[in-house]
């Protein structure tokens, strides 16, 4: 059964194995990428629903069914958007949010790498800190907000602490798992070739754990962005994209709220896409 899968996955390799190992005319890398070619129409299927929703929205707001002010037209949202961009308000809010996001992400990731590495490499640390960490993980992040607001106020410091916490958890979990789950078979290979402890760590454990570490950092980026908005809603002080939404809601300006949501979506998508792109670049040669 396993062989059947093998045939499908690497036809050129199998051919070479069978055909008496004459020099391969094609390199394995160039042939293995000969996957699907005509997926272009399929790729746009995901856009159907949003476009449809947009059309309905447009239609409804144009036919004057609702004049309540709860529903604004797409034109008005676009207009507000242009206004926000032109006045620099959007940029001020977005840069404040992103600066916090990245600070929290950087701090949380750095702490997570250290703590995760400790839990992964040291049995003692795992035994002493592991249970506490696993319990801590179960507590919803938002439960910490009252405590954080008492200790750090409602300003930037409190938000960054909250974001760091959000980024820390996935990094710790994935780093320690990645290190502990290194295949014992590969560690045995290192033993056969008399790798020193240091060589085992640098040459086997770290490269083997890298995809898992990256997943942790990727999740930290996403979580800290989600937490940025949470922090701005719950620790209301200063400026940010979340504050822009709150202002819009308080002033009953649905156009501002909707524009804010679109911006948040775009930022989230951009973070996600750039992380995926980086991941693909880094692990292009790996199967899993």
């Amino acid at each position: 059964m396993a062989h059947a899968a093998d045939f499908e996955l690497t036809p050129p390799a199998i051919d070479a194995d069978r055909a008496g190992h004459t020099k391969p005319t094609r390199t394995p890398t160039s042939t293995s990428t000969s996957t699907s070619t005509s997926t272009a129409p399929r790729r746009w299927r995901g856009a159907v629903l949003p476009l449809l929703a947009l059309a309905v929205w447009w239609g409804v707001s144009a036919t004057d069914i609702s004049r309540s002010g709860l529903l604004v037209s797409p034109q008005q949202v676009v207009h507000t958007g242009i206004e926000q961009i032109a006045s620099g308000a959007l940029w001020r809010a977005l840069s404040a949010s992103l600066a916090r996001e990245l600070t929290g992400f950087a701090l949380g990731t750095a702490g997570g790498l250290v703590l995760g590495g400790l839990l992964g490499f040291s049995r003692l640390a795992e035994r002493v800190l592991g249970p506490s960490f696993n319990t801590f993980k179960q507590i919803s992040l938002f439960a910490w907000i009252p405590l954080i607001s008492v200790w750090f106020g409602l300003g930037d410091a409190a938000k960054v602490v909250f974001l760091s916490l959000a980024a820390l958890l996935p990094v710790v979990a994935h780093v320690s798992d990645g290190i502990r789950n290194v295949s014992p078979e590969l560690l045995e290979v290192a033993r056969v070739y008399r790798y020193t402890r240091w060589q085992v760590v640098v040459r086997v454990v770290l490269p083997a754990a890298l995809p898992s570490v990256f997943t942790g950092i990727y999740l930290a980026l996403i979580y800290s962005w989600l937490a940025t908005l949470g922090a701005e809603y719950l620790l209301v002080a200063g400026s940010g994209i979340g504050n822009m939404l709150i202002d819009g809601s308080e002033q009953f300006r649905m156009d501002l709220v909707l524009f804010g949501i679109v911006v948040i979506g775009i930022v989230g998508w951009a973070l996600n896409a750039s992380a995926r792109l980086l991941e693909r670049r880094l692990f292009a040669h790996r199967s899993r």
Partner: protein
Amino acid sequence: MSELLSRVQESNERNTKQSSKRSTQQNVEPQRTNDLQIRHVSKNYAQPGGNLEVLADIELDVAAGEFVSVVGASGCGKSTLLRLIAGLDAEFDGTIRLDGQTVAGTSLARGIVFQEHRLFPWLNVEQNIGVALRNSGLDAAQKRLAIAEHIELVGLGGFEHAYAHQLSGGMAQRVAIARGLVNRPSVLLLDEPFGALDALTRSRLQGELQRIWARERITMVLVTHDVEEAVFLGDRVVVMQPRPGRVKRVVDVPMARPRNRSDPEFIRIRDDVLREFAEPGGAADASL
């Protein structure tokens, strides 16, 4: 090629670091230099239900340059024996000596190929073979040359930069064989190296291994449950019996190479070995 090989050999001798000890041993046993001696080797596993005797008083000599096949049903301890020789498991009674020196821990003088290829997924073919040379004491140019020669030896020219997931099972196992040989070990241990391959690839690689052995004249010990494979490759076939694991019989295969599987003499010896498994008390599930 031979010039480099002798240089590698020299460096291996440097690596064993006990050349003075060896020369005194040679005085005691002048004829027996490169051979493998297994004396009164027993191994027990403590189990909840009592003591499990995995190996009972194994006695085996393998001469330098000899190819010995060890065949037996699963559970007869043949793979355990190989792990003891490799130095991956030090908990046993009795002594194993290679080249006059008692086996303690792993050594670059004892190469091993496992059933799974165990290549590092983040390294390409070249780099995976280089794993074996990391602590060989060779300089960069010597390593490059040794790697290139062994890629050529296993017939993978053109695939130097391919990653494990781009290779078929048979090709990955060729890389594993090259990695096992690149240090020019005194003995190469093969732990069911073709067990996971489809029948066509397996018989192809058996032929390749025979060619490599005939050319390199490195002592090889092959563990397998495939009687035909054992007879096809071995100068001698050691038949092992389970519970406790012990040597039942040693069959000589006095046939010239390359061998032909349909040769009447080959069939006679193969059937002779197979009869050992058909008898009551022997394992009936020896595959062919």
